[in-house]
C-alpha cells in the first residue's frame, strides 16, 4: 500500500508538492496551516505555468519535464514529416519515444546503485529541522543547540545499530567518497613514519583507487589486487601481499557495478592475524547485506546515506575504538566529530540519514524478500535472450545489483533505445566518459563485452509491473539492435569475430 502510493506520488508530482499534500491531508492538522500549504501548492503550480519552466527549481518538476519532452518530441515529429523516407526501420523503438505510455511520462527508475529515491518517512523526519529546529547541534549553551544535538545523537545510534557498532564509533561525513578518502589518506598519513604500504583491489570505487594513487605521490607503495572472473579477491594472494610495513587493507563490501560481495569475514580475520587495519567501503552494502563489524573484524567502514533511501550529501565512517584506530583528519577546524571531521553537522541530513538507517534495519526482511524475488524474475527474464550473460559471481552477490552483457549490441545504443527506463552502463561517475568499465576489465572481459553491459538496480520501491515491462522492452530492443548489428550477422553466418583483423580507430 505504502509502496504503490509512494511510487504514484513520485510519478505524478514532484517530491516537494507530494510532501505538501501529505501534510495537507493530515486529518487533525491545523486548518490555517492547511490552507496556507494548499495555497503555496497552487502558487508552485502557477509559477511553473507562467514561467515556461525557466526557473532553476522547475527542472526537477514533472510538469516542466513533461513540457520539455513534448517540445523535443514535436521537434522530432516535424522532421519525420519532412523526410518522406526510404524507410526500412521497425517500430520496435517507437514506444520508447512515444508521448503517452500509460505509465506516466517519467522513465522507470532502475539505477538504484547511482542513488535511491528518498523514502517519504525520511523526508517527514527531515522537514522539521528545516523549519523550527534550526539550532547548531554543537551549540551547548542554549536549548536550540540541545534539541538538534539530541536528534544527531539519536541518528548516530540508528546508524551504528545496523552494523552492531557503538554510536561513539560513528563519524558523520559528507558521503562515502569523503569517508573513503579520509581512511586511505588519514590512516596512511598517521602511520607514515613506520608504514608505507596500502593494499586494495582493482575493482574498488574510483574514490578509493584515486585516493590510493594520491598516496603513491606521497611515497607509499600500493598493491592493487586482481580479482578472478567472478569478481572475487583471492584470499591467498591478499595474505601474501601483506608486508611488515602494510598499514591498511581496503576491500569493498558490495561492488557498485556488478554487485559481487567480497568475503569480508575471511579478509577480516587475515587482517587481524597480521595486525593490519581492515577498511571496507560499504556504500552499496550497508543495510542491504548483514554486516557485523565485530564478528567480521572490520576496523573502518564507509557508509553513504543516499544509497539507503536517505538524503544526499551525507554519509558516515565507522572508526573502531577498541583497539583504537588512529587517523589524521582531512579537515582542520573546530574539532567536531571526535576531532576527525571538523565542520558543523547538518541536522536535517543527519536526522534523515538516521531515520533511513532505522528503516533499513526494521524493514530488512521485507526489503530482502522483495528485492530477491524481483531480482530473480529480472535475471531469468533477461538471460532467456540468446548470448546474454550475467557478470560477476552468481552466488556471492547482492541481488539488487544485476550486470548483464548483451553480446553484439553496443551499450550506449541500447541505453538510447531504453529511454523509458533509467539505467546505466556502469557507474554514474564514469558514464560521461566513453571508456569501457574498468571493473569488467578486471574480471577479464574484453572491450566489446564491457561495451555491451548494462547495470540494473532493484530497490525497495521497484514494482513487479516495472520489472515485467523492462524484461519485455529489453528483449524487443536487443532484437532490434541485433538486426542492425553487422557483428550479429557475422556470428549467425558462423564467422569467428576474433579471427577478423579489425581496422581499429
Amino acid at each position, binding site marked *: 500500500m505504502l509502496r504503490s502510493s509512494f511510487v504514484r506520488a513520485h510519478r505524478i508530482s514532484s517530491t516537494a508538492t507530494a510532501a505538501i499534500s501529505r501534510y495537507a491531508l493530515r486529518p487533525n492538522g491545523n486548518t490555517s496551516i492547511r490552507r496556507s500549504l494548499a495555497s503555496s501548492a497552487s502558487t508552485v503550480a502557477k509559477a511553473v505555468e507562467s514561467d*515556461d*519552466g*525557466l526557473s532553476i527549481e522547475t527542472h526537477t518538476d514533472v510538469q516542466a519535464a513533461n513540457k*520539455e519532452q513534448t*517540445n*523535443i518530441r514535436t*521537434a*522530432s515529429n516535424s*522532421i*519525420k514529416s519532412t*523526410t518522406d*523516407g*526510404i*524507410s*526500412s*526501420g521497425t517500430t520496435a*523503438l*517507437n514506444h*520508447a*519515444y512515444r508521448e503517452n505510455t500509460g505509465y506516466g511520462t517519467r522513465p522507470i527508475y532502475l539505477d538504484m546503485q547511482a542513488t535511491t529515491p528518498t523514502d517519504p518517512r525520511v523526508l517527514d523526519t527531515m522537514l522539521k529541522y528545516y523549519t523550527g529546529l534550526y539550532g547548531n547541534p554543537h551549540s551547548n549553551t542554549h536549548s536550540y543547540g540541545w534539541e538538534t544535538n539530541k536528534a544527531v545523537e539519536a541518528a548516530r545510534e540508528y546508524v551504528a545499530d545496523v552494523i552492531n557498532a557503538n554510536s561513539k564509533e560513528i563519524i558523520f561525513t559528507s558521503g562515502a567518497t569523503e569517508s573513503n578518502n579520509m581512511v586511505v589518506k588519514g590512516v596512511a598519513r598517521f602511520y607514515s613514519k613506520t608504514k608505507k604500504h596500502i593494499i586494495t583491489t582493482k575493482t574498488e570505487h574510483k574514490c578509493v583507487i584515486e585516493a590510493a594513487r594520491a598516496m603513491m605521490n606521497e611515497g607509499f607503495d600500493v598493491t592493487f589486487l586482481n580479482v578472478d572472473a567472478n569478481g572475487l579477491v583471492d584470499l591467498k594472494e591478499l595474505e601474501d601481499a601483506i608486508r611488515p610495513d602494510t598499514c591498511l587493507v581496503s576491500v569493498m563490501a558490495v561492488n557498485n557495478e556488478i554487485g559481487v560481495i567480497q568475503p569480508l569475514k575471511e579478509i577480516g580475520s587475515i587482517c587481524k592475524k597480521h595486525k593490519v587495519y581492515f577498511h571496507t567501503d560499504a556504500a552499496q552494502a550497508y543495510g542491504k547485506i548483514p554486516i557485523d563489524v565485530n564478528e567480521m573484524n572490520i576496523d573502518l567502514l564507509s557508509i553513504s546515506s543516499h544509497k539507503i533511501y536517505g538524503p544526499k550529501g551525507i554519509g558516515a565512517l565507522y572508526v573502531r575504538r577498541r583497539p583504537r584506530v588512529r587517523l589524521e583528519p582531512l579537515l582542520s577546524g573546530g574539532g567536531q566529530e571526535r576531532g576527525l571531521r571538523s565542520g558543523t553537522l547538518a541536522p536535517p541530513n543527519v536526522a534523515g540519514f538516521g531515520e533511513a538507517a532505522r528503516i533499513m534495519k526494521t524493514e530488512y526482511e521485507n526489503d530482502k524478500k522483495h528485492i530477491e524475488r524481483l531480482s530473480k524474475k529480472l535475471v531469468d527474464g533477461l538471460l532467456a535472450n540468446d548470448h546474454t550473460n550475467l557478470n560477476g559471481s552468481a552466488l556471492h552477490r547482492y541481488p539488487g545489483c544485476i550486470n548483464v552483457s548483451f553480446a*553484439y*549490441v*553496443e*551499450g*550506449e*545504443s541500447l541505453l*538510447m*533505445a531504453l529511454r523509458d527506463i533509467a539505467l546505466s552502463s556502469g557507474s554514474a561517475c564514469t558514464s560521461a566518459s*566513453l571508456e*569501457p568499465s574498468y571493473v569488467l576489465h578486471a574480471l577479464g572481459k*574484453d*572491450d*566489446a563485452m564491457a*561495451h555491451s553491459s548494462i547495470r540494473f538496480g532493484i530497490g525497495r520501491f521497484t514494482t513487479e509491473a516495472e520489472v515485467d515491462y523492462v524484461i519485455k522492452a529489453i528483449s524487443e530492443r536487443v532484437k532490434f539492435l541485433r*538486426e*542492425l*548489428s*553487422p*557483428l*550479429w*550477422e557475422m556470428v549467425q553466418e558462423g564467422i569467428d*569475430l576474433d579471427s577478423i583483423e*579489425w*581496422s*581499429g*580507430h
Partner: protein
Amino acid sequence: MRSSMITTRRLYHPKVIEHYTNPRNVGSLDKKSKDVGTGIVGAPACGDVIKLQIQVDDKTGIIENVKFKTFGCGSAIASSSYMTELVHGMSIDDAAKIKNTEIAKELSLPPVKLHCSMLAEDAIKAAIKDYKTKRNSTVLH
C-alpha cells in the same frame, strides 16, 4: 532560448534520434555479387563497427542500391543511416568525395561523437574501393 537549453543538456540531437529510431536502408546485399562493394570499418573493441554495401550500375557508375548495418552508439547508427540516404543515386566518384563534416553538420554531432561521422566516411570509401578492386579483377580476366 529554451530549446537551446534542451539541446545542450541532451546528448542527442532530434535528427540523430529520428535516424536511430527509424534507420533507413538497413540490411545486407549479396557480398559475392560482382556489382556489390562492401566496406567494413571500425572494431568491436572501440565500440563501433559499420558495414556499408553499395550496388553499382557497371555502365553508369551510379549507386543503385545501398544497405548498412552498424554496431555502435546512436550517433554511429544515425551517421551511417544518413550516409546511405546521401549516396543513394549518386555516382561512385561523387560518393567518394563526401566529407565527414557534411554528416556531422546535418546531425549536429558533438565533438565527442565526430569519430562516428569519420567512420561513416571511411565506410563508403572502403565500399567503393572494394567495388573497384572487384571490377578491375573481372576486367583483367
